[in-house]
């Protein structure tokens, strides 16, 4: 997997990548009546659990698929590919005020 990651970085596509501890060490929050309530993992009822992720920059969904097909997984693993929302996806719903707030948040979060 280190080799695959290296290829992504060398191709200038990798924005981030992390592995996650198992859900047995995690928690879930449900919201009823405006109130958040926590329950502890593991979560046996769920069919799909996230174990880690890559954030990559690709020209198209097809390019992202081609890259992830090369990930060195044996049987059992599955990778789901989803496009990250950008400001332009929201059109007029993103008011100038919201856009300014979003940009400021991102700049500050990066520090």
């Amino acid at each position, binding site marked *: 997997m*280190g080799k695959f990651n290296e290829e992504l970085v060398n191709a200038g596509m990798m924005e981030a990548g992390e592995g*996650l501890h198992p859900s047995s*060490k995690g928690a879930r929050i449900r919201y009823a009546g405006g109130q958040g309530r926590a329950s502890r993992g593991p979560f046996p009822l769920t069919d799909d659990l996230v174990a880690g992720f890559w954030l990559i920059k690709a020209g198209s969904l097809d390019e992202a*698929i081609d890259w992830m097909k090369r990930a060195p997984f044996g049987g*059992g693993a599955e990778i789901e590919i989803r496009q990250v929302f950008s400001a332009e996806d929201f059109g007029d*719903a993103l008011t100038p005020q919201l856009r300014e707030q979003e940009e400021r948040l991102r700049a*500050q*979060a990066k520090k």
Partner: protein
Amino acid sequence: MRFMLLMIPQGYCSAPPDVQLDPERVKAMMKYNEALQQAGILITLDGLHPPSAGARVSFASGKPVVTDGPFTESKEVLGGYWMIDVKSQEEAIAWACKCPASENEIIEIRRVQEMADFSDEVREAAAGFAEMQGRTARR
């Protein structure tokens, strides 16, 4: 400790590719994002396009097999995520509880793996990972 707050909106599994968000809900969520940021714990955050615009690559047969979304067998899908840096899982849970989420939404809290969590053997195999993270192309 770094934690992912994984937003799982029920029903998002069947959302159309051009899903529209409610500006009022976005405003409420931005207020929450701002609170995370002002507390100095926000590392990154993103929203994801619906699964109907995505794809899955599965390795069950040892060879990659591509399926286009939506994924009818999945009841729970990701709508977005935050990564935060806090002192404990309790603190991460307390922050997630403050999220102005709807009744159809669940936030799953999962700790991010650090090199210190692994055996020497794994750390050796993952040599260069930290440098790689430093070299990634952040926006």
